[in-house]
Every structure is written in structure tokens, then in C-alpha cells.
């Protein structure tokens, strides 16, 4: 059982950390959107949010990131490596589905080849998540083996109770933060149990996901793909807002004779993702590209790492220009098992 401590509020965590001049990332209201941004004062933060439009994956795996600098002006090309150094950072108030995405991405970026940039950011960051007290019809975390108060990926999980907030201290990083915040008063496990019961009622959309990988493996050519996914228009909105999608492209971008090699987000839903230099594209139709997204998330990745490449945050459904509903595709598959 994780250590339970009482905590005044998520805002108090931000206040304390900013007063200690720590780098804090928290949800900020930006026009109509909520975004995760670095904050200097607790007044900038808005925890009364449902979910930030973009996930926080960009803080670990940015949309674009320089990996080395080069110049070709002299006789021999010059290469200069980027220094890898990141300040100690605290993410405060992300949702458990976003925190749970981090161990999923860790497996990819720290597997056979360790992505030093990603690892350095992960190592220097402490995650303080905030359990959900609201959900919409696009949330489906419970079907992905998670819950609105899942501890996966968090160092501290903050849970709202009837009286205030509880901090569930889950890791060494979490313990270090708890002592930095000077949390002493013990929380009640009965309060935690009660909040878990109310959290379990939040998510109404539920389907059986266990048999999905097996079905996918043997139904690659099923008419379902064409029927349900032809409407996909081939943008990358779903993959870019996804906290677990992690495909990238490496590009050299020179200005004159010098430039930078960059690692940029890429997406299997885009036409050029599998386009060959010859002009041939093995995924020539959009439904085949969308199928790849589902296969990667619910067959290939689980096959390799034993988990779904999805936390059920529902962002891809909310953002889709043509209302292509990933959960609906999974529900349809689930109904056939």
C-alpha cells in the first residue's frame, strides 16, 4: 500500500514549488484551450479543467527537437552534438491517463536503443497527477485496464476526497517531493477507498478489450477496415494529440551551408509515411493507414511489451475532423469476439 499523506490542494503544490524557484509545468487556460505550460505563479494555473487539448508528451518527446548541428562550409563537414542537460522539472496536475502514457513510451525510447534526450527529460521530471472527478463519453480508460485514479506513471497521485486532497506517494521521486513539500499528516485509507469507488463510476463507456489483439492478428483483410475507416481524411491530428503515439522522422534542415538535424513527430495516418522513393506506397488507401494505427496500438505493441499502446484518454476521438471514433472501432471488434 502506497503511503498516504494529506495535502491542502493542487494549487498549494504549485505555490510551494514556484516559491522554491523550481520549474513547474501545469495546465493553463489559453483562450478556449487548456495547455500544459511552464508556470511561475500558482495564479496562472487552472486545475478546474477537464483535459488539456494536447498531451504532455511534448515535454519529453517534443514535436521538433535538434539532435545535432552541422556545417559544410569548410573542406570537411563539421558536426556538433547537442548537449543533453535538462533542469529539474515538476509536472503538476496531469490526468492519470497522461501519466500512464509515460511508462508506455519509456518502453519504446529506452528499449534496445536508449534515446538519451528522452531519458534525460524523464529522469529529471517528477510527475504529480490529479485523479479525475469528471469524464465525457469519449473517455474509455477502464477498457484499457486503467481507471480515473490509476497510479501508473505518477510519482505522486493527488486524489480529491470529501474533506480535501490526499497525496498517494508512489515512488522515490515522490517521497523526495513529499519531504520538499513538507507533507507530514497521514491520510486515511478509508477516504482513499471511498474516492476510488466514486472514480470507478465516472467512466460509462466500457468494452472488453482482452481479445482485440487476437482478432486483429487474424483479420487484417476484414471488410471492417474499409467500412469504418474510409472516412479518415489522412491528417495526423489523432496521433499528434495522442499521449502514446511516438513515431518520428529525422530531417536535416540547412540554412545556407550550416544547419540542424532534427527529430520531428511523424504519423502513420499521413500519406507520405510509407511512400517509397520509387513513388510506390504499400499503404495506398486511407483505411490501410488507419488500420496500421490500430494494429500498432492493439496488436504489435502489446505483442512486444504486453500492454496496449493506448490509455483511453479519448483525445483522438474529440479532435477527429470527421468524428472517426477509435473506441467505436474497438467496440465493433470486441462485439465480434
Amino acid at each position, binding site marked *: 500500500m502506497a503511503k498516504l499523506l494529506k495535502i491542502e490542494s493542487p494549487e498549494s503544490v504549485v505555490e510551494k514549488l514556484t516559491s522554491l524557484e523550481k520549474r513547474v509545468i501545469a495546465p493553463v487556460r489559453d483562450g478556449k*484551450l487548456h495547455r500544459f505550460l511552464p508556470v511561475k505563479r500558482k495564479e496562472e494555473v487552472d486545475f478546474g479543467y477537464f483535459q488539456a487539448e*494536447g498531451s504532455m508528451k511534448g515535454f519529453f518527446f517534443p514535436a521538433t527537437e535538434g539532435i545535432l548541428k552541422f556545417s559544410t562550409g569548410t573542406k570537411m563537414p563539421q558536426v556538433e552534438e547537442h548537449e543533453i542537460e535538462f533542469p529539474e522539472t515538476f509536472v503538476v496536475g496531469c490526468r492519470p491517463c497522461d501519466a500512464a502514457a509515460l511508462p508506455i513510451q519509456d518502453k519504446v525510447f529506452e528499449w534496445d536503443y536508449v534515446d538519451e534526450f528522452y531519458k534525460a527529460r524523464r529522469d529529471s521530471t517528477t510527475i504529480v497527477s490529479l485523479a479525475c472527478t469528471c469524464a465525457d463519453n469519449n473517455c474509455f480508460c477502464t477498457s484499457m485496464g486503467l481507471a480515473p485514479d490509476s497510479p501508473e506513471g505518477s510519482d505522486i497521485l493527488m486524489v480529491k476526497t470529501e474533506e480535501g486532497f490526499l497525496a498517494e506517494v508512489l515512488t522515490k521521486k515522490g517521497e523526495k517531493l513529499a519531504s520538499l513539500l513538507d507533507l507530514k499528516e497521514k491520510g486515511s485509507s478509508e477516504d482513499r477507498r471511498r474516492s476510488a469507488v466514486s472514480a470507478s463510476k465516472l467512466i460509462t463507456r466500457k468494452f472488453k478489450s482482452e481479445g482485440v489483439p487476437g482478432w486483429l492478428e487474424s483479420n487484417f483483410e476484414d471488410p471492417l477496415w474499409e467500412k469504418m475507416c474510409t472516412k479518415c*481524411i489522412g491528417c495526423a491530428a489523432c496521433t499528434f494529440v495522442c499521449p502514446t503515439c511516438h513515431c518520428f522522422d529525422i530531417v536535416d534542415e540547412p540554412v545556407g551551408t550550416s544547419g540542424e538535424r532534427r527529430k520531428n513527430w511523424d504519423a502513420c495516418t499521413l500519406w507520405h509515411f510509407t511512400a517509397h522513393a520509387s513513388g510506390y506506397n504499400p499503404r495506398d488507401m486511407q483505411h490501410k493507414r488507419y488500420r496500421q494505427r490500430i494494429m500498432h496500438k492493439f496488436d504489435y505493441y502489446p505483442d512486444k511489451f504486453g500492454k496496449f499502446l493506448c490509455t483511453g484518454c479519448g483525445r483522438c476521438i474529440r479532435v477527429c475532423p470527421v468524428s472517426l471514433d477509435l473506441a467505436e472501432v474497438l467496440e465493433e471488434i470486441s462485439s465480434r469476439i
Partner: protein
Amino acid sequence: MSEELRKIAKDLLKSEKVGVVIGYAFTKADPKRTTPIFVTDTRDTDKLVFNPLCLNNLTVYLTKKKPEIQEVGRPAVVAKGCDVRSILGLIKEFQFKREDVVIIGVGCEGVVKDFSHWTGKLTRENMASKCLYCRVRVPTTYDYLVGEEVPSIEEQDPFKDVKELLSKSVEEREKFWKNQFEKCIRCYACRQVCPFCYCHRCISDKTMPRWIESSAHERGNFAWNIIRAMHLAGRCVGCGECSRVCPAEIPLDLLNREIEREMKEKFEYTAGMDTETPPPLRTYSEKDDDSWIR
């Protein structure tokens, strides 16, 4: 209205005049959200609906981006007045002929800004801004028309917000767009949803040479968004889909409408109103202003 639509769709499919009807249906999970549907079976025509939640411009499915849909057979498309403007524009650009598509025009009182704004009733507050100055509430061209009686509304100046932005200094405008483009993640939802972005290979996908940096940084984002707006000059019909779908909520239509305003002022041209008027950027006229050539 939906009933009438279903009947037309059923007749078209039954008589084999079309192979597919492209329309709207409610999503399975959310009764307040619609999604494009391709009806090929007369039994599925009952799924078709039309209401203020029918946001998509379905004409994107008529372009060469979607050959798999046309392969099914001649398409019929449910089109609002603004969507019909895209069809006329595409015909003018030789993408298909008028007889290649059956237009099921729908009279439209306006659509909601986005699904989350729907309260069960359409008001000036929750209406998409393009609807507040719409002049084509009843489509100008169609093969079938559903709901021809649409109440008129008090028309707004379509360029009100454009003029507001233009009244600011160059520095302020630069700062405004810098803040907006900083949010761009280069997902290309704006491009993919646009009926006029049908290039087989978009300039942003070309790598030999790479004309536009694909990175989501200031240079790359400025280059991408401005080039896209320029390429739509005199072509964009103002359906507003790019702004609606942008996950970063960048007001892309502001850029497009400024160009629309200039086209109107300099060439007295508005895109998508007919299939005959020659588009200014494709046409030479002796009356063209050449004072800028020195």
C-alpha cells in the same frame, strides 16, 4: 427534412443513378455529434440526417484525395450552400464535370461552432461565424433541393474581424501570428480537410529539394501556414473547415478571408459563386493593374 433527404437518397440508389450517397449520420456513441457516411445500400438511407450539427464540408470526398469513394460509382453529395461553392470551384478547376456529381442541396439555417457548443437550439451565440454572414443559405446550384424555405438573418460584415486585425500595426500583427503559429503541430488537418488542397504531392511533403521545413518551429510553421493561404488565393470559398478542425485552434480562416477581401477589392471576384467567371490568378487581362512592374 431528414425524411425528404432519405427518400431522395433511396430513389437515387434504387434507380442506380448514383453508386454512393455521401451524407451525414449521427455517431453511434454521441447523439450530439455527426459524422460523414457513405450510403451504398438503400437499407442504410435511414441513417441520413440533416441538422445544425452537420458541420463537415463533405465535398472533400469528391476530390482525387479519395479515389476509393468514386470507385464505388457516381456520387451524390449532401451539400449546404457553402459546400456547393466548393463544388463549383472544383468544377472550375477541372477536377470533375458538373454531370459527374449529383448535388442534394440543403437549405441551411446555419451550423453550430463545434459539437460541444450545441444546446439543442441554434442561436447567434453558438452559430459558426461563417453562418452569420452567409449569402447562400439556399444553395445556388443543385439537382435536388431539400428545405428551400430558410428564414433570412441580419447579415454581418464578413470582414469585420479581418479589418480589426488589419487596423493594428505590423509589429502587433506579427506578434499575433507568431503566438498563433507557435501552437501549430504540423498535423496537416487544415490541409486534409480542405477540398481545394488536392495536390497529389503537397509542397510540404517534398524532400528533394525540401521547400518548406517540416519542423514545428517558427520558420517552418510560418512558411507552411502562409504558403497554404497563398495557394488558396482566389480559390478558398470560406467554408471554414480549416479553422474548425485545427487542434491548436489557430484562426486560419482569418488569413484566407483577408486574401478573399483583397481578391474582391482588386479583381471584384468571389470564389465558388459560379463555374464561368474566370479566376483572376489564372487569367490575363489587359485591364490588370501593372503599375507594380518597374
